[in-house]
């Protein structure tokens, strides 16, 4: 169970990006977090695994308080939190297998990591997960030789290698073409139920959020203004979230294509 309470993030002396945010995610639910750019989606996700330091508040994962962790304890907590990135964040010059095994870095010792001598179970797990998502035959290819959808599958497998208790996905489909992004969403949805894993997906594409998730959380200016099922997500909610900022991305086909080109090399997420 992931419990976020009164989470505040403020960069310098600016207006806070997250304003006392509360969120509870239980069981193996897929939660979509929607909101305009700058609403604080990415910051919230990165506060959970502390890639961004929260200013105040509390984040508890299965009872462990994450906000106060330091050093080795933080790393131990991080390995229980898988993350999938918008730009895949693979290591281009390493093979697919090495990228996948990198998900075990929190578990193996330094020698095993450098010599690539991972335990048998890890390799077994890597192969079965790669088979599950259909990339096992690429094991020894370099990561940069793969197409966007395949690269994101590597990213997903890497996150699952961590045996996570929660999976965070930061705009996992924004760099992909419409068809591939649908496939990745289906994959995330089915993996969540197979592994009974809570999944938090930041997503721009409201149509996809409605189709593939069970719960939608709407953020605006760092505050939660909607929390409900896709069925409850009405035109009004949409207007409340996006109104006066920009038009919502209702047409999956258009948006994804437009963002593919610029995101091909991995666009840095906007910190706001």
């Amino acid at each position: 169970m992931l419990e976020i309470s009164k989470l505040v993030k403020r960069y310098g002396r600016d207006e806070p990006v997250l304003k006392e945010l509360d969120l509870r995610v239980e069981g193996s639910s897929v939660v979509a977090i929607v909101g305009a750019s700058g609403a604080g989606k990415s910051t919230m996700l990165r506060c959970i695994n502390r890639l961004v330091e929260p200013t105040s508040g509390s984040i508890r994962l299965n009872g462990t308080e994450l906000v106060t962790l330091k050093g080795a304890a933080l790393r131990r907590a991080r390995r229980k939190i898988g993350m999938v990135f918008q730009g895949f964040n693979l290591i281009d010059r390493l093979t697919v297998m090495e990228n996948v095994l990198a998900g075990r870095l929190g578990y193996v010792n330094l020698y095993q990591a450098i010599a690539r001598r991972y335990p048998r179970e890890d390799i077994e797990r890597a192969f079965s997960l790669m088979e599950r998502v259909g990339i096992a035959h690429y094991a020894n290819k370099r990561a940069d030789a793969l197409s966007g959808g395949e690269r994101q599958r590597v990213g997903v497998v890497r996150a699952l290698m961590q045996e996570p208790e929660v999976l965070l996905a930061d705009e996992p489909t924004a760099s992909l073409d419409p068809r591939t992004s649908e496939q990745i969403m289906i994959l995330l949805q089915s993996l969540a139920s197979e592994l009974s894993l809570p999944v938090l997906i930041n997503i721009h594409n409201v149509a996809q959020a409605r189709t593939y998730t069970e719960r939608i959380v709407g953020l605006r200016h760092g505050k939660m203004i909607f929390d409900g099922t896709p069925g409850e997500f009405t035109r009004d909610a949409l207007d409340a979230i996006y109104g006066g900022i920009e038009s919502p991305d209702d047409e999956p086909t258009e948006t994804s294509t437009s963002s593919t080109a610029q995101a091909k090399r991995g666009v840095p997420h906007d910190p706001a």
Partner: protein
Amino acid sequence: MTRPDREDTAPRTWRKPPFIANPWLRYGLWLVLVVYLVWAFGSLPFNWARIGEGLPRAARIFGGGFPPSFERGALMLTGFKESFQIAILATLLGVMLSIPFAVMAARNVAPLPVYLFGRAVIIISRSFHPVIVAILFVAAVGFGPLAGILTLTLYSIGFVGKLLAEEIEEIDWGQVEAMRATGAGYLATLFYAVFPQILPRQIGLSMYQLDSNLRASAVVGIVGAGGIGGTLMNAFGRYDYDFAFAILLIIIAVILVSEGISGWVRKKIW
């Protein structure tokens, strides 16, 4: 493992594919490296007895060197002034002379025999370290700044000439054709179609070369070609380590300042 239809029977172990696929070549290269290291270390004449004295000597040198003495400031000033003069004159001469040599060494504007000659001059002047050139000029024209100027002029011709020749080879040929179409002769074409295209680059290179010559002028003095290097060498020879360290500190400071200025000017120009 590499084909989907064999997945079921695929061995469930994995090794990182080696950087060099051929095992013979892979282990062969390691062997070559080991053999080389053994050979190199084995064949080099190390004078261990003398090296063993090194630490106490180092202590004495650094002990004698600190604090650095700036007492003979006048001598130092003369040395630095001479180094500056050498660097400035050599840069001026070298940059001017590098233009004809660059034209000679550019394949697209020079006929083959001239090209070969130009290339040869540039290759030879680049092959020799300025200190070697300096020692030869000292032997030919005697101790003093003249040898230094000649050395660094040659050094500049080699460096600037090479880069400039490459620049000429990459110019926009259309302008040359346009000049030729007006009936201009060879020299006129050079001046009006080639040089304008390489001029900005030449100014940047000159600044770079001035900086580079200033550095080199500090060392050609060690073999007697004038400048602060000679002063430094003398200080070392007379075990005047405090004076030597003072010179070294100033050399470092001057180089940093000159690097900063040259970088700033080049940024302004480009």
